[in-house]
């Protein structure tokens, strides 16, 4: 709030030019009536008019700051600025992956490749969380979202049931779920509930005694734990549950990869045109999987144009598109062939999941015998990070992170080989034995 001097013209840009007289000078225009010392009712009217014009004029002055694409997504629940580059990023559906990528999400307009070694399928968990996160963002606005949503999902797959396999939002532990169910049934207006309503104060007393009624404190704690500023940015997904209701064609488009390249690209382009004001999340699961892709796709002259075309569409819509893809790197050898490196080259970011071999898993199981929730399932190798690697920063980090897949989240943490207590005890025991043999001659201490 600032105060202007009387002699300054309201509504003039910057308010700097002063008009000293009321006379019809050359500067005087009907849009900007000057205010002189003697204020008449007509002047007051003109001042209010000037103020109203001020507010109208100020809006277009602000808008050029926001670019065209960002304007669409300014209030999008799934977009926040990256702490590293302040470019808008969207959540991948896995908080730890968001953190690992360095932007608290995948920056808009970027593409991510998740490679996986071995015969496991951990990458599909990440893909499904990414897809489910898009659907949940879309539904933040309520029932209206099915028609006028803010996010659309495109999946290049032959799996017609992809939509039905998406995980649901994690509702809390079993106790939390039970409690919420009880409260839900109690809140319903049924005959039984109205009959029991007389007993409610007594229940409340007990509830108060055990602190069950203290919801407000719990809620405030939860909101503190969550990111206050971006409440709907990222969710935890329970991979044992399903997203209900399953996404419909209004929220998700399936494109078969097993068709001519130009057909795939034109279908993808059509989706972008049809949903011109939505964030488009493109998912390419199991790239080059022999079940979905015909053998010729594993030849570079076929796969490179496909990926180049998809990349081009994503970059063309770089203010509202992200892509995630998974691929088994064991199917295609890295040495002697250019396929894997060429595919990596087509993506802005790449990570590699390497599940632990059996011996390592057994070792971890033994070490974390009392804490089975700490057992990691494999290593995460970082190849490229979005935006950062492209500008020349070196972000290849092998064997620095480990992942753990749980019911409620896919965790990525710094990797360190844990200490085997049994080995330590054995070695200690050995030392103690040797000590005891020495200490036979000394006087034992009394405690």
């Amino acid at each position, binding site marked *: 709030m600032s105060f202007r001097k009387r002699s300054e013209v309201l509504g003039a840009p910057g308010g700097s030019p002063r008009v000293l007289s009321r006379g019809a000078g050359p500067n005087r225009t009907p849009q900007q009536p000057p205010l002189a010392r003697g204020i008449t009712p007509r002047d007051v009217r003109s001042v209010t008019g000037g103020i109203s014009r001020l507010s109208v004029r100020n809006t277009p002055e602000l808008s050029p700051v926001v670019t065209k694409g960002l304007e669409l997504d300014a209030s999008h629940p799934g977009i926040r600025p990256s702490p590293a580059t302040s470019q808008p990023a969207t959540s991948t559906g896995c908080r730890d992956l968001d953190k690992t990528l360095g932007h608290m999400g995948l920056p808009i307009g970027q593409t991510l490749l998740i490679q996986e070694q071995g015969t496991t399928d951990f990458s599909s968990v990440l893909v499904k969380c990414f897809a489910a996160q898009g659907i949940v963002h879309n539904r933040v606005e309520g029932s209206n979202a099915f028609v006028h949503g803010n996010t659309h999902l495109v999946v290049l797959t032959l799996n017609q049931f992809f939509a039905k396999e998406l995980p649901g939002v994690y509702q809390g532990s079993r106790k939390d779920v039970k409690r919420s169910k009880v409260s839900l049934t109690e809140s319903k207006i049924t005959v039984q509930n109205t009959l029991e309503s007389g007993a409610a104060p007594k229940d409340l007393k007990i509830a108060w005694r055990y602190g069950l009624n203290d919801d407000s404190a719990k809620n405030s704690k939860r909101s503190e734990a969550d990111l206050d500023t971006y409440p709907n940015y990222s969710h935890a997904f329970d991979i044992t549950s399903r997203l209900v209701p399953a996404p419909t064609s209004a929220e998700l488009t399936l494109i078969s990869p097993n068709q001519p*390249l130009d057909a795939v690209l034109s279908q993808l382009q059509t989706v972008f045109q049809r949903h011109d004001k939505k964030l488009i999340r493109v998912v390419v699961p199991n790239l080059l999987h022999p079940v979905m892709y015909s053998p010729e796709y594993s030849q570079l002259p076929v796969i490179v144009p496909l990926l180049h075309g998809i990349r*081009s569409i994503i970059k*063309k819509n770089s203010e509202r598109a992200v892509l995630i893809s998974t691929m088994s790197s064991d199917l295609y050898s890295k040495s002697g062939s250019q396929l894997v*490196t060429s595919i990596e080259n*087509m993506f802005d970011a790449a990570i590699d999941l390497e599940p632990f071999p059996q011996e390592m898993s057994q070792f971890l199981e033994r070490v974390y015998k009392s804490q089975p929730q700490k057992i990691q399932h494999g290593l995460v190798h970082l*190849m*490229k990070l979005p935006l950062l690697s492209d500008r020349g*920063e*070196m*972000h290849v980090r092998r064997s620095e992170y480990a992942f753990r897949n749980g019911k409620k989240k896919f965790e990525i943490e710094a990797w360190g080989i844990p200490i085997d207590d049994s080995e330590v005890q054995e070695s200690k025991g050995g030392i103690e034995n040797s000590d005891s043999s020495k200490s036979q001659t000394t006087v034992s201490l009394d405690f």
Partner: protein
Amino acid sequence: MSMAQKQDLVIFSDHSVLSRELFSKDLHHVLFVTHKLGTSPSWLINALVETQVLGFPATLNESHAAAVNRASNRKITDSKCATVASFIHNRGFFTSALKKLKVDAECYNIIDYMTDFVLKNYGKPASKVLSSLLEELSNESATSELLILEQPELLVHLLNITSDQLHLELINPLIKKFPLLVVVSYTEAYENVPSDSNEKLSSDMIEQIRFCNSCFFKSAAVLGLKPLATGHASDVSGTLTITRGGASLSHLAVHVVENEYLFLTQKDTTKLFYR
């Protein structure tokens, strides 16, 4: 490493990055920039464009703020502009980076061969596409003395051609059009050749090796960017190795100064150090 003395980038013996000798006579030269996973060459491309526009890589070794402060004092040389044609990055990638470095937009031209390249050219005969590319790029020679081609090797797969065809129909004619052509290539696969020579190489690998070898032979200098063999380090991003290529510079008064630098890229700035 922060205390180590920063070094100016010198490629030619007259203490320059791009010697004016290269542009002095009606001669044509090639520089070959190779890079690997983790060492993107965008800073080097920007430095080359800056050198062409301003005469020296003004923002190399400078902190971003200092570089911006110095931007107002720069004088644009009277040399012709630089053109960057990329098959992997779009126009916005380069313009935003060069805008940050305060390089005047009129002094360079970006040709975007990433956006819609497949949609426009898929299914067309390769020779026709190559000739149209050549024509478009040749037109740039009227205003540009320097052409930077980023990842032209992708054309081998995009158009399903051999590396020889690419060299004969695009690279060689372009060398004749521009005083200086810089080919930037991703050579991650090049060094992934299995040590066991009995293993059969795939045809695409052979094409990649053939493309790189041809570039090595044609170039006056090779600038190799690669990460440290020991992996990630917080104070070094990688090494820049400058070596002589197959083409001789005996007809010029300058020669390539072979050297190896360590470089650190952080937040839009790159600093060079001696190894």
